[in-house]
């Protein structure tokens, strides 16, 4: 799975995919709705805060060095593959 937006796809490929696209990395995999459900339940603000600050195995910013907060939000929605609010 890759975002349809080319800019988002580039960001995803070079940052998030290294963990969210690799089985066994410990991260909820892109498109795995069941794995993402408990994260989604925390709400978008909590998820964006986790990305910005880092959380457990995820380093701060998700190691996406040019992502804006809006990019973080779009990437979360893409990987969760379900409504996030």
């Amino acid at each position, binding site marked *: 799975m890759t975002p349809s937006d080319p800019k988002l796809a580039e960001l995803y490929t070079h940052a998030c995919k290294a963990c969210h696209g*690799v089985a066994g990395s410990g991260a909820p995999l892109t498109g795995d709705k069941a794995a993402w459900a408990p994260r989604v339940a925390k709400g978008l603000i909590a998820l964006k805060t986790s990305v910005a600050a880092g959380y457990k195995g995820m380093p701060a910013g998700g190691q996406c060095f040019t992502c804006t907060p809006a990019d973080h939000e779009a990437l979360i929605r893409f990987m969760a593959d379900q409504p996030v609010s």
Partner: protein
Amino acid sequence: MTTRRALLTGTALLVGGSAAGAVGYRLWRDREPEGPPATDGAGRLVWRNWSGIQSSYPQARAAPANEDELASLLKTAQGPIRPVGAGHSFQPLVPTSGTLLTLDRMSGVLDHDPEAVTAQVRAGTRLGELGPALARIGQEMRNLPDINKQSIGGALGTGTHGTGLGFKAIHGEVQSFRIATLGGDILDCSADHHPEIFHAARVNLGAFGVITEVTLKNAPLTTVQKRVELRDVSDVCDDWPELKKNHRNVEFYAIPFTGKAAVITVDETSRPVKPRGADEDSSTLMTLKTLRDLFGYAPDVRRFVARKLMDALPAEDMVDEGWKLLSNERPVRFNEMEFHLPVEAQIPALKEVVATIEANRPDVFFPIEVRHIEADDAWLSPFYQRASGSVAVHAYYKDEYQFLFTLIEPIFRRHGGRPHWGKLNSLTAADFRALYPRFDDAMAVRAALDPGGKFLNPYLKKALIGG
């Protein structure tokens, strides 16, 4: 049942009986470390390294798509200009209030020579992408680091390496590179063209210019067998010279407070593929943490329980293309110090490090990584004209890590070690001048390329110029 899964099962039985009394302390100890604010007073987003201990608020972030964009950018960008790869360095190589520069948009294999078995690779390529890309053209890197998240540019910047007799670090297989300078030029460098830049900047800390692509000497694609086996650490230390001779790639992890070591060997094979399966290293690590949490202040009990769980566990074998097996997922974050020692000093230094940790730091539970790297001729390579044995000590990202400087670094320095450029150390320019015979020559090349120090942040000024 695999080696590590049996360990987890055994520990789970213990944890059930012992957890109740220390819940409050453990919750406090396991809290997420506080980090800097997400933005500074001017609204700039924070950058942090992978482990979280380095941070800054860059004024600008740049992601050029090609050499022309990069060359143009370098002429006008606000300094310090700091290139960032995967952000896995623990030393403050990247923090900048100026321009944070990523080559994430300059990645991929550009070309290859099947006869010479070389590939031309853009510097923003992550090792995890490079493995399958090389496999598609029938090539492989036979020596890879413990993780594959690094960019090629970052790997060259810090002297990243794997392990095995006769295997150089990644920069040791570089035949040529292209580097973008502050003046907006792109220079082709090799042993025959700009040789002084080639030798000085093959390990470059992002302080000479920005490498845009490299030509790597690779090997034909093979299948390998990787074996992970738990043994008594004293036996492994005695057998280390023979292990190095008998296996293509080999390393071991000495596990403090257990008397055990995990030995990892990789050898070419014609056996059928047996894929590696789900990662168990992280769960094993957390089991070691549990043993620390439960028995940290009763080391004899800790050792007894660990040995009970680990003894007589079978070795694990997996067979596949090397790029799928040589590197590992490491989602549990940590901070790390690694020094590269003269070969004859490695095991004595390791024994001293383990004894010091066991005498003073019951909170340490991460295994200590022990590897071998061949000599090369890059002027700032930690392996410059010296085959080396590396010893790497880790601290869980939630734990205090100053002991690395106060207890561990003095041991490494006494044994003649050179630190990994990207990992924790307190050395200054004067120290590096004493350790690297060509240090001043390399600095002369750096100064000629960047007379104003636009690539230097405060740490690099201390490490490379001093004063």
